[in-house]
Protein backbone atom coordinates (compact mmCIF):
# COMPACT_ATOMS: atom_id res chain seq x y z
CA UNK A 1 0.00 0.00 0.00
CA UNK A 2 1.30 3.47 -0.79
CA UNK A 3 0.13 6.88 0.38
CA UNK A 4 0.79 8.27 -3.09
CA UNK A 5 -1.53 5.79 -4.84
CA UNK A 6 -4.21 6.19 -2.14
CA UNK A 7 -4.22 9.99 -2.36
CA UNK A 8 -4.08 9.91 -6.15
CA UNK A 9 -7.15 7.62 -6.18
CA UNK A 10 -9.06 9.74 -3.66
CA UNK A 11 -8.27 12.86 -5.71
CA UNK A 12 -9.30 11.19 -8.93
CA UNK A 13 -12.65 10.05 -7.52
CA UNK A 14 -13.38 13.54 -6.13
CA UNK A 15 -12.38 15.07 -9.46
CA UNK A 16 -14.80 12.77 -11.30
CA UNK A 17 -17.64 13.87 -9.05
CA UNK A 18 -16.61 17.53 -9.37
CA UNK A 19 -17.18 17.10 -13.11
CA UNK A 20 -20.77 16.14 -12.32
CA UNK A 21 -22.22 19.17 -10.49
CA UNK A 22 -25.77 17.86 -10.79
CA UNK A 23 -24.87 14.83 -8.66
CA UNK A 24 -23.31 17.11 -6.05
CA UNK A 25 -26.43 19.31 -6.04
CA UNK A 26 -28.67 16.24 -5.66
CA UNK A 27 -26.51 14.91 -2.82
CA UNK A 28 -26.96 18.16 -0.91
CA UNK A 29 -30.49 19.18 -1.87
CA UNK A 30 -32.38 15.87 -1.71
CA UNK A 31 -31.70 14.96 1.96
CA UNK A 32 -32.29 18.56 2.99
CA UNK A 33 -35.57 18.70 1.07
CA UNK A 34 -36.70 15.40 2.62
CA UNK A 35 -35.96 16.78 6.05
CA UNK A 36 -38.02 19.90 5.28
CA UNK A 37 -40.81 17.61 4.05
CA UNK A 38 -40.73 15.71 7.38
CA UNK A 39 -40.80 19.01 9.24
CA UNK A 40 -44.07 20.01 7.58
CA UNK A 41 -45.45 16.48 7.77
CA UNK A 42 -45.08 16.50 11.58
CA UNK A 43 -45.71 20.21 12.04
CA UNK A 44 -48.07 19.67 14.97
CA UNK A 45 -45.94 16.91 16.56
CA UNK A 46 -42.46 18.29 17.15
CA UNK A 47 -41.51 15.29 19.33
CA UNK A 48 -42.14 12.90 16.40
CA UNK A 49 -40.09 15.11 14.09
CA UNK A 50 -37.30 15.07 16.69
CA UNK A 51 -37.45 11.28 17.12
CA UNK A 52 -37.32 10.56 13.36
CA UNK A 53 -35.73 13.67 11.83
CA UNK A 54 -32.74 14.02 14.15
CA UNK A 55 -31.29 10.50 13.63
CA UNK A 56 -32.18 10.72 9.94
CA UNK A 57 -29.68 13.60 9.58
CA UNK A 58 -26.97 11.03 10.30
CA UNK A 59 -28.48 8.24 8.17
CA UNK A 60 -28.88 10.08 4.84
CA UNK A 61 -25.15 9.92 4.03
CA UNK A 62 -25.24 6.12 4.54
CA UNK A 63 -28.00 5.72 1.95
CA UNK A 64 -26.53 8.11 -0.60
CA UNK A 65 -22.96 6.82 -0.37
CA UNK A 66 -24.11 3.21 -0.67
CA UNK A 67 -25.83 4.02 -3.93
CA UNK A 68 -23.16 6.29 -5.39
CA UNK A 69 -20.29 3.93 -4.56
CA UNK A 70 -21.97 0.81 -5.88
CA UNK A 71 -22.56 2.55 -9.23
CA UNK A 72 -19.07 4.12 -9.31
CA UNK A 73 -17.37 0.78 -8.61
CA UNK A 74 -19.59 -1.03 -11.08
CA UNK A 75 -18.44 1.48 -13.71
CA UNK A 76 -14.81 0.77 -12.86
CA UNK A 77 -15.53 -2.90 -13.40
CA UNK A 78 -17.48 -2.57 -16.65
CA UNK A 79 -15.38 0.10 -18.40
CA UNK A 80 -12.15 -1.85 -17.96
CA UNK A 81 -10.46 0.76 -15.77
CA UNK A 82 -10.40 -1.67 -12.84
CA UNK A 83 -8.70 -4.29 -15.01
CA UNK A 84 -6.13 -1.67 -16.01
CA UNK A 85 -5.56 -0.65 -12.39
CA UNK A 86 -4.98 -4.32 -11.55
CA UNK A 87 -2.06 -4.41 -14.00
CA UNK A 88 -0.47 -1.32 -12.39
CA UNK A 89 1.56 -0.88 -9.21
CA UNK A 90 -1.43 -0.11 -6.98
CA UNK A 91 -2.62 -2.20 -4.02
CA UNK A 92 -6.27 -3.16 -3.61
CA UNK A 93 -6.19 -1.33 -0.28
CA UNK A 94 -5.13 1.86 -2.13
CA UNK A 95 -8.27 1.65 -4.24
CA UNK A 96 -10.57 0.91 -1.28
CA UNK A 97 -9.08 3.47 1.07
CA UNK A 98 -8.90 6.01 -1.76
CA UNK A 99 -12.62 5.57 -2.40
CA UNK A 100 -13.31 5.73 1.34
CA UNK A 101 -11.39 8.99 1.73
CA UNK A 102 -13.10 10.60 -1.27
CA UNK A 103 -16.60 9.64 -0.18
CA UNK A 104 -15.74 10.54 3.42
CA UNK A 105 -15.03 14.10 2.25
CA UNK A 106 -18.31 14.22 0.32
CA UNK A 107 -20.18 12.80 3.31
CA UNK A 108 -18.69 15.44 5.59
CA UNK A 109 -19.97 18.19 3.28
CA UNK A 110 -23.38 16.53 3.03
CA UNK A 111 -23.59 16.01 6.78
CA UNK A 112 -22.60 19.63 7.41
CA UNK A 113 -25.38 20.93 5.16
CA UNK A 114 -28.08 18.54 6.43
CA UNK A 115 -27.16 19.05 10.10
CA UNK A 116 -27.04 22.83 9.71
CA UNK A 117 -30.51 22.88 8.19
CA UNK A 118 -31.89 20.32 10.65
CA UNK A 119 -30.43 21.65 13.88
CA UNK A 120 -30.06 25.38 13.16
CA UNK A 121 -33.03 26.07 10.88
CA UNK A 122 -35.72 23.47 11.51
CA UNK A 123 -35.24 23.49 15.28
CA UNK A 124 -34.16 19.86 15.79
CA UNK A 125 -32.46 19.33 19.13
CA UNK A 126 -28.88 18.10 19.43
CA UNK A 127 -28.38 17.92 23.20
CA UNK A 128 -24.81 16.61 22.84
CA UNK A 129 -23.90 18.91 19.95
CA UNK A 130 -24.73 18.76 16.25
CA UNK A 131 -21.06 17.98 15.59
CA UNK A 132 -21.54 14.54 17.19
CA UNK A 133 -24.40 13.76 14.78
CA UNK A 134 -22.29 15.01 11.86
CA UNK A 135 -19.36 12.86 12.97
CA UNK A 136 -21.56 9.77 13.20
CA UNK A 137 -22.97 10.70 9.78
CA UNK A 138 -19.48 10.54 8.27
CA UNK A 139 -18.81 7.17 9.91
CA UNK A 140 -22.15 5.89 8.58
CA UNK A 141 -21.32 7.24 5.12
CA UNK A 142 -18.07 5.27 5.08
CA UNK A 143 -20.02 2.19 6.20
CA UNK A 144 -22.46 2.78 3.33
CA UNK A 145 -19.55 3.19 0.93
CA UNK A 146 -17.92 -0.04 2.11
CA UNK A 147 -21.19 -1.99 1.72
CA UNK A 148 -21.76 -0.40 -1.70
CA UNK A 149 -18.31 -1.45 -2.86
CA UNK A 150 -19.00 -5.00 -1.77
CA UNK A 151 -22.50 -5.05 -3.28
CA UNK A 152 -21.22 -3.80 -6.64
CA UNK A 153 -19.44 -7.11 -7.16
CA UNK A 154 -22.83 -8.83 -7.42
CA UNK A 155 -24.26 -6.49 -10.06
CA UNK A 156 -23.56 -6.90 -13.74
CA UNK A 157 -25.53 -3.85 -14.84
CA UNK A 158 -26.49 -0.47 -13.41
CA UNK A 159 -30.13 -1.62 -13.43
CA UNK A 160 -29.17 -4.35 -10.97
CA UNK A 161 -26.97 -2.05 -8.90
CA UNK A 162 -29.73 0.52 -8.26
CA UNK A 163 -32.02 -2.28 -7.07
CA UNK A 164 -29.53 -3.24 -4.37
CA UNK A 165 -30.62 -0.03 -2.74
CA UNK A 166 -34.14 -1.31 -1.92
CA UNK A 167 -32.75 -4.84 -1.44
CA UNK A 168 -29.91 -4.01 0.97
CA UNK A 169 -30.86 -0.66 2.46
CA UNK A 170 -34.66 -0.66 2.87
CA UNK A 171 -34.86 -3.73 5.15
CA UNK A 172 -32.18 -2.20 7.34
CA UNK A 173 -34.05 1.12 7.46
CA UNK A 174 -37.28 -0.67 8.44
CA UNK A 175 -35.70 -2.84 11.13
CA UNK A 176 -33.13 -0.45 12.62
CA UNK A 177 -35.58 1.02 15.12
CA UNK A 178 -36.21 4.32 13.37
CA UNK A 179 -39.87 3.62 12.55
CA UNK A 180 -40.78 0.95 15.10
CA UNK A 181 -38.90 0.48 18.37
CA UNK A 182 -36.98 -2.78 18.07
CA UNK A 183 -38.25 -4.20 21.37
CA UNK A 184 -41.82 -3.97 20.00
CA UNK A 185 -40.97 -6.09 16.96
CA UNK A 186 -41.67 -9.81 16.60
CA UNK A 187 -38.83 -11.73 18.23
CA UNK A 188 -37.46 -13.06 14.94
CA UNK A 189 -37.38 -9.56 13.41
CA UNK A 190 -35.62 -8.33 16.52
CA UNK A 191 -33.02 -11.08 16.08
CA UNK A 192 -32.48 -10.19 12.42
CA UNK A 193 -32.06 -6.55 13.36
CA UNK A 194 -29.05 -7.49 15.49
CA UNK A 195 -27.28 -8.73 12.36
CA UNK A 196 -27.77 -5.52 10.43
CA UNK A 197 -25.12 -2.79 10.48
CA UNK A 198 -27.63 0.05 10.23
CA UNK A 199 -29.14 -0.99 13.58
CA UNK A 200 -25.94 0.05 15.36
CA UNK A 201 -25.64 3.21 13.28
CA UNK A 202 -29.19 4.15 14.31
CA UNK A 203 -28.66 3.24 17.98
CA UNK A 204 -25.64 5.54 18.19
CA UNK A 205 -27.59 8.36 16.52
CA UNK A 206 -30.59 7.82 18.79
CA UNK A 207 -28.32 8.26 21.83
CA UNK A 208 -26.63 11.29 20.28
CA UNK A 209 -30.00 13.03 19.74
CA UNK A 210 -31.49 12.07 23.11
CA UNK A 211 -31.13 14.50 26.05
CA UNK A 212 -30.30 11.61 28.45
CA UNK A 213 -26.66 11.21 29.35
CA UNK A 214 -24.68 9.32 26.70
CA UNK A 215 -24.64 5.67 27.80
CA UNK A 216 -21.58 3.46 27.82
CA UNK A 217 -23.35 1.19 25.30
CA UNK A 218 -22.99 3.89 22.64
CA UNK A 219 -19.26 3.13 22.36
CA UNK A 220 -20.25 -0.46 21.53
CA UNK A 221 -22.60 0.79 18.79
CA UNK A 222 -19.85 2.92 17.26
CA UNK A 223 -17.41 0.02 17.50
CA UNK A 224 -19.96 -2.21 15.72
CA UNK A 225 -20.30 0.34 12.90
CA UNK A 226 -16.51 0.44 12.51
CA UNK A 227 -16.28 -3.37 12.64
CA UNK A 228 -18.94 -3.75 9.94
CA UNK A 229 -17.05 -1.17 7.85
CA UNK A 230 -13.76 -3.04 8.15
CA UNK A 231 -15.47 -6.36 7.40
CA UNK A 232 -17.24 -4.94 4.33
CA UNK A 233 -13.95 -3.47 3.07
CA UNK A 234 -12.28 -6.82 3.64
CA UNK A 235 -14.96 -8.67 1.68
CA UNK A 236 -14.83 -5.86 -0.89
CA UNK A 237 -11.09 -6.46 -1.31
CA UNK A 238 -11.83 -10.15 -1.96
CA UNK A 239 -14.10 -9.14 -4.86
CA UNK A 240 -11.32 -7.09 -6.48
CA UNK A 241 -9.56 -9.82 -8.38
CA UNK A 242 -6.31 -9.30 -10.22
CA UNK A 243 -7.08 -12.34 -12.33
CA UNK A 244 -10.54 -13.06 -13.71
CA UNK A 245 -11.98 -15.89 -15.78
Amino acid at each position, binding site marked *: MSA*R*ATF*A*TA*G*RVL*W*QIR*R*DPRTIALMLVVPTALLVLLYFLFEGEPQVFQRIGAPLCGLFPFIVMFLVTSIAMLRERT*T*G*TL*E*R*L*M*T*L*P*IAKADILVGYGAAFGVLAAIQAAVVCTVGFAVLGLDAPHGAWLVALLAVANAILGMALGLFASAFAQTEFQAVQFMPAFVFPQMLLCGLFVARDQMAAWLHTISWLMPLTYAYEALAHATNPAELPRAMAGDVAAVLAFTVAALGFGALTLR*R*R*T*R
Partner: protein
Amino acid sequence: MAGAPAIHVENLHVARGGREVIHGLTLEVASGSVTGLLGPSGCGKTTLMRSIVGVQVLGAGTVTVLGRPGGSRELRSEVGYVTQAPSVYGDLTVEENLRYFARLVGAERAGIDEAVATVGLTGHVRQVVGSLSGGERSRVSLATALLARPRLLVLDEPTVGLDPVLRSELWATFHELARAGTTLLVSSHVMDEAGECDTLLLMREGRLLEHLTPAELRAKTGQEDLGRAFLAVIRAAEGSS
Protein backbone atom coordinates in the same frame (compact mmCIF):
# COMPACT_ATOMS: atom_id res chain seq x y z
CA MET B 1 19.29 -9.25 -21.60
CA ALA B 2 19.55 -9.52 -25.41
CA GLY B 3 18.82 -13.04 -26.52
CA ALA B 4 16.48 -13.90 -23.64
CA PRO B 5 12.90 -13.78 -24.88
CA ALA B 6 10.63 -11.11 -23.41
CA ILE B 7 7.71 -13.53 -23.32
CA HIS B 8 7.77 -17.28 -23.07
CA VAL B 9 4.48 -19.16 -23.12
CA GLU B 10 4.56 -22.92 -22.59
CA ASN B 11 1.67 -25.29 -23.26
CA LEU B 12 -0.96 -22.71 -22.27
CA HIS B 13 -4.59 -23.79 -21.87
CA VAL B 14 -7.23 -21.20 -20.99
CA ALA B 15 -11.00 -21.49 -20.63
CA ARG B 16 -13.34 -18.52 -20.81
CA GLY B 17 -17.02 -18.76 -20.09
CA GLY B 18 -16.72 -22.49 -19.47
CA ARG B 19 -15.22 -23.19 -22.91
CA GLU B 20 -11.55 -23.79 -23.63
CA VAL B 21 -10.42 -21.02 -26.00
CA ILE B 22 -6.65 -21.58 -25.95
CA HIS B 23 -5.55 -25.15 -26.57
CA GLY B 24 -1.93 -25.74 -25.59
CA LEU B 25 -0.16 -22.69 -26.95
CA THR B 26 3.65 -22.49 -26.91
CA LEU B 27 5.46 -19.41 -28.18
CA GLU B 28 8.26 -16.93 -27.60
CA VAL B 29 8.46 -13.21 -28.27
CA ALA B 30 11.93 -11.74 -28.82
CA SER B 31 13.08 -8.71 -26.83
CA GLY B 32 13.12 -5.33 -28.55
CA SER B 33 10.92 -6.37 -31.44
CA VAL B 34 7.48 -5.54 -32.76
CA THR B 35 5.53 -8.79 -32.85
CA GLY B 36 2.15 -8.89 -34.53
CA LEU B 37 -0.48 -11.21 -33.10
CA LEU B 38 -2.83 -11.85 -35.97
CA GLY B 39 -5.92 -13.90 -36.44
CA PRO B 40 -9.64 -13.59 -36.95
CA SER B 41 -11.89 -12.12 -34.29
CA GLY B 42 -12.53 -14.70 -31.57
CA CYS B 43 -9.38 -16.75 -32.16
CA GLY B 44 -8.04 -16.12 -28.64
CA LYS B 45 -5.79 -13.08 -29.17
CA THR B 46 -7.26 -11.09 -26.30
CA THR B 47 -7.26 -14.11 -23.98
CA LEU B 48 -3.58 -14.72 -24.77
CA MET B 49 -2.76 -11.07 -24.06
CA ARG B 50 -4.73 -11.17 -20.81
CA SER B 51 -2.76 -14.27 -19.83
CA ILE B 52 0.53 -12.52 -20.59
CA VAL B 53 -0.26 -9.42 -18.51
CA GLY B 54 -1.60 -11.59 -15.67
CA VAL B 55 -5.29 -10.70 -15.48
CA GLN B 56 -6.51 -14.05 -16.79
CA VAL B 57 -7.02 -17.18 -14.71
CA LEU B 58 -4.93 -19.84 -16.48
CA GLY B 59 -6.08 -23.41 -16.98
CA ALA B 60 -2.70 -25.05 -17.46
CA GLY B 61 0.78 -24.16 -18.66
CA THR B 62 3.17 -21.34 -17.79
CA VAL B 63 3.64 -17.75 -18.87
CA THR B 64 7.04 -16.15 -18.26
CA VAL B 65 7.42 -12.42 -18.83
CA LEU B 66 10.81 -10.67 -18.59
CA GLY B 67 12.10 -13.69 -16.68
CA ARG B 68 9.31 -13.74 -14.09
CA PRO B 69 5.93 -15.51 -13.88
CA GLY B 70 3.36 -13.43 -15.78
CA GLY B 71 1.40 -11.10 -13.50
CA SER B 72 4.12 -10.89 -10.80
CA ARG B 73 4.03 -7.80 -8.63
CA GLU B 74 7.46 -6.72 -9.94
CA LEU B 75 6.11 -6.73 -13.49
CA ARG B 76 3.38 -4.19 -12.79
CA SER B 77 5.68 -1.26 -13.52
CA GLU B 78 7.45 -3.07 -16.38
CA VAL B 79 4.48 -4.17 -18.47
CA GLY B 80 1.99 -1.81 -20.11
CA TYR B 81 -1.36 -3.21 -21.25
CA VAL B 82 -3.86 -1.44 -23.45
CA THR B 83 -7.23 -3.14 -23.78
CA GLN B 84 -9.19 -3.04 -26.99
CA ALA B 85 -11.95 -0.90 -25.47
CA PRO B 86 -10.37 2.30 -24.14
CA SER B 87 -10.00 1.92 -20.37
CA VAL B 88 -9.84 5.52 -19.23
CA TYR B 89 -12.21 7.70 -17.21
CA GLY B 90 -14.71 9.28 -19.58
CA ASP B 91 -15.70 12.00 -17.11
CA LEU B 92 -12.14 13.34 -16.73
CA THR B 93 -10.09 15.35 -19.21
CA VAL B 94 -7.17 13.83 -21.11
CA GLU B 95 -4.75 15.59 -18.77
CA GLU B 96 -6.58 14.51 -15.59
CA ASN B 97 -6.58 10.89 -16.74
CA LEU B 98 -2.88 10.98 -17.51
CA ARG B 99 -2.05 12.79 -14.27
CA TYR B 100 -3.79 10.04 -12.27
CA PHE B 101 -2.05 7.17 -14.03
CA ALA B 102 1.28 9.07 -13.94
CA ARG B 103 1.00 9.32 -10.15
CA LEU B 104 0.33 5.59 -9.87
CA VAL B 105 3.40 4.62 -11.89
CA GLY B 106 5.58 7.46 -10.59
CA ALA B 107 6.02 9.21 -13.95
CA GLU B 108 7.18 12.81 -14.22
CA ARG B 109 5.16 15.74 -15.51
CA ALA B 110 7.34 15.79 -18.66
CA GLY B 111 6.34 12.19 -19.28
CA ILE B 112 2.71 13.26 -19.61
CA ASP B 113 3.49 15.85 -22.30
CA GLU B 114 5.63 13.34 -24.12
CA ALA B 115 2.99 10.61 -24.07
CA VAL B 116 0.34 13.06 -25.28
CA ALA B 117 2.60 14.18 -28.13
CA THR B 118 3.37 10.57 -29.07
CA VAL B 119 -0.30 9.77 -29.63
CA GLY B 120 -0.96 13.13 -31.32
CA LEU B 121 -3.38 14.57 -28.76
CA THR B 122 -1.44 17.69 -27.72
CA GLY B 123 -4.30 19.99 -28.73
CA HIS B 124 -6.87 18.00 -26.73
CA VAL B 125 -5.38 17.80 -23.24
CA ARG B 126 -8.13 19.89 -21.65
CA GLN B 127 -10.96 18.04 -23.35
CA VAL B 128 -13.15 15.64 -21.38
CA VAL B 129 -12.43 12.12 -22.67
CA GLY B 130 -16.13 11.32 -23.03
CA SER B 131 -16.45 14.08 -25.64
CA LEU B 132 -13.63 12.70 -27.81
CA SER B 133 -14.10 10.43 -30.82
CA GLY B 134 -13.61 6.69 -30.44
CA GLY B 135 -10.18 6.79 -32.06
CA GLU B 136 -9.06 9.66 -29.86
CA ARG B 137 -10.25 7.84 -26.77
CA SER B 138 -8.23 4.76 -27.62
CA ARG B 139 -5.19 7.00 -28.09
CA VAL B 140 -5.67 8.41 -24.58
CA SER B 141 -5.75 4.80 -23.38
CA LEU B 142 -2.50 4.13 -25.26
CA ALA B 143 -0.87 7.28 -23.86
CA THR B 144 -1.55 6.16 -20.28
CA ALA B 145 0.32 2.91 -20.98
CA LEU B 146 3.34 4.82 -22.33
CA LEU B 147 3.75 6.86 -19.11
CA ALA B 148 5.64 4.21 -17.17
CA ARG B 149 8.06 3.60 -20.10
CA PRO B 150 7.39 -0.12 -19.76
CA ARG B 151 9.84 -2.71 -21.09
CA LEU B 152 6.96 -4.66 -22.57
CA LEU B 153 3.90 -3.12 -24.19
CA VAL B 154 0.91 -5.36 -24.90
CA LEU B 155 -1.51 -3.59 -27.22
CA ASP B 156 -4.87 -5.11 -28.13
CA GLU B 157 -5.97 -3.78 -31.51
CA PRO B 158 -4.54 -0.29 -30.94
CA THR B 159 -5.16 0.99 -34.46
CA VAL B 160 -8.84 0.06 -34.90
CA GLY B 161 -10.84 3.03 -36.14
CA LEU B 162 -7.84 5.27 -36.74
CA ASP B 163 -7.33 7.22 -39.94
CA PRO B 164 -4.57 5.88 -42.20
CA VAL B 165 -2.15 8.75 -41.55
CA LEU B 166 -2.38 8.36 -37.80
CA ARG B 167 -2.16 4.59 -38.12
CA SER B 168 1.12 4.80 -39.99
CA GLU B 169 2.41 7.37 -37.48
CA LEU B 170 1.59 4.99 -34.63
CA TRP B 171 3.39 2.14 -36.32
CA ALA B 172 6.42 4.43 -36.71
CA THR B 173 6.16 5.17 -32.99
CA PHE B 174 6.01 1.44 -32.18
CA HIS B 175 9.25 0.88 -34.14
CA GLU B 176 10.88 3.85 -32.42
CA LEU B 177 9.99 2.34 -29.05
CA ALA B 178 11.33 -1.04 -30.16
CA ARG B 179 14.62 0.54 -31.25
CA ALA B 180 14.90 2.05 -27.78
CA GLY B 181 14.61 -1.48 -26.34
CA THR B 182 10.87 -1.86 -25.70
CA THR B 183 9.23 -5.12 -26.71
CA LEU B 184 5.83 -4.72 -28.34
CA LEU B 185 3.14 -7.32 -28.81
CA VAL B 186 0.43 -5.84 -31.01
CA SER B 187 -2.74 -7.65 -32.00
CA SER B 188 -4.77 -7.00 -35.10
CA HIS B 189 -7.42 -8.77 -37.10
CA VAL B 190 -6.57 -6.94 -40.32
CA MET B 191 -3.74 -8.52 -42.28
CA ASP B 192 -2.69 -5.29 -43.98
CA GLU B 193 -0.98 -4.34 -40.71
CA ALA B 194 1.06 -7.54 -40.70
CA GLY B 195 3.67 -6.01 -42.99
CA GLU B 196 4.46 -3.44 -40.29
CA CYS B 197 5.65 -6.10 -37.83
CA ASP B 198 9.09 -7.64 -37.41
CA THR B 199 7.61 -11.03 -36.57
CA LEU B 200 4.14 -12.51 -36.93
CA LEU B 201 2.24 -14.90 -34.73
CA LEU B 202 -0.67 -16.28 -36.72
CA MET B 203 -3.46 -17.67 -34.58
CA ARG B 204 -6.65 -19.47 -35.38
CA GLU B 205 -9.19 -21.08 -33.06
CA GLY B 206 -6.94 -21.00 -30.02
CA ARG B 207 -3.90 -22.49 -31.75
CA LEU B 208 -0.71 -21.02 -33.15
CA LEU B 209 -0.45 -21.70 -36.88
CA GLU B 210 2.82 -19.98 -37.69
CA HIS B 211 5.58 -17.90 -36.12
CA LEU B 212 7.61 -16.18 -38.84
CA THR B 213 8.56 -12.87 -40.44
CA PRO B 214 6.37 -11.27 -43.11
CA ALA B 215 9.06 -12.09 -45.71
CA GLU B 216 9.10 -15.73 -44.63
CA LEU B 217 5.31 -15.85 -44.82
CA ARG B 218 5.39 -14.54 -48.39
CA ALA B 219 8.15 -16.94 -49.39
CA LYS B 220 6.49 -19.92 -47.75
CA THR B 221 3.11 -19.39 -49.39
CA GLY B 222 4.20 -17.76 -52.63
CA GLN B 223 1.64 -15.01 -51.99
CA GLU B 224 2.70 -11.37 -52.13
CA ASP B 225 -0.50 -10.23 -50.39
CA LEU B 226 -0.29 -11.08 -46.68
CA GLY B 227 -4.05 -11.60 -46.40
CA ARG B 228 -3.94 -14.26 -49.10
CA ALA B 229 -0.80 -15.70 -47.52
CA PHE B 230 -2.61 -16.13 -44.18
CA LEU B 231 -5.49 -17.81 -46.02
CA ALA B 232 -3.02 -20.21 -47.62
CA VAL B 233 -1.58 -21.02 -44.18
CA ILE B 234 -5.06 -21.78 -42.83
CA ARG B 235 -5.90 -24.01 -45.83
CA ALA B 236 -2.62 -25.86 -45.42
CA ALA B 237 -3.29 -26.39 -41.70
CA GLU B 238 -6.81 -27.68 -42.43
CA GLY B 239 -5.51 -29.95 -45.16
CA SER B 240 -2.95 -31.54 -42.85
CA SER B 241 -5.30 -32.09 -39.90
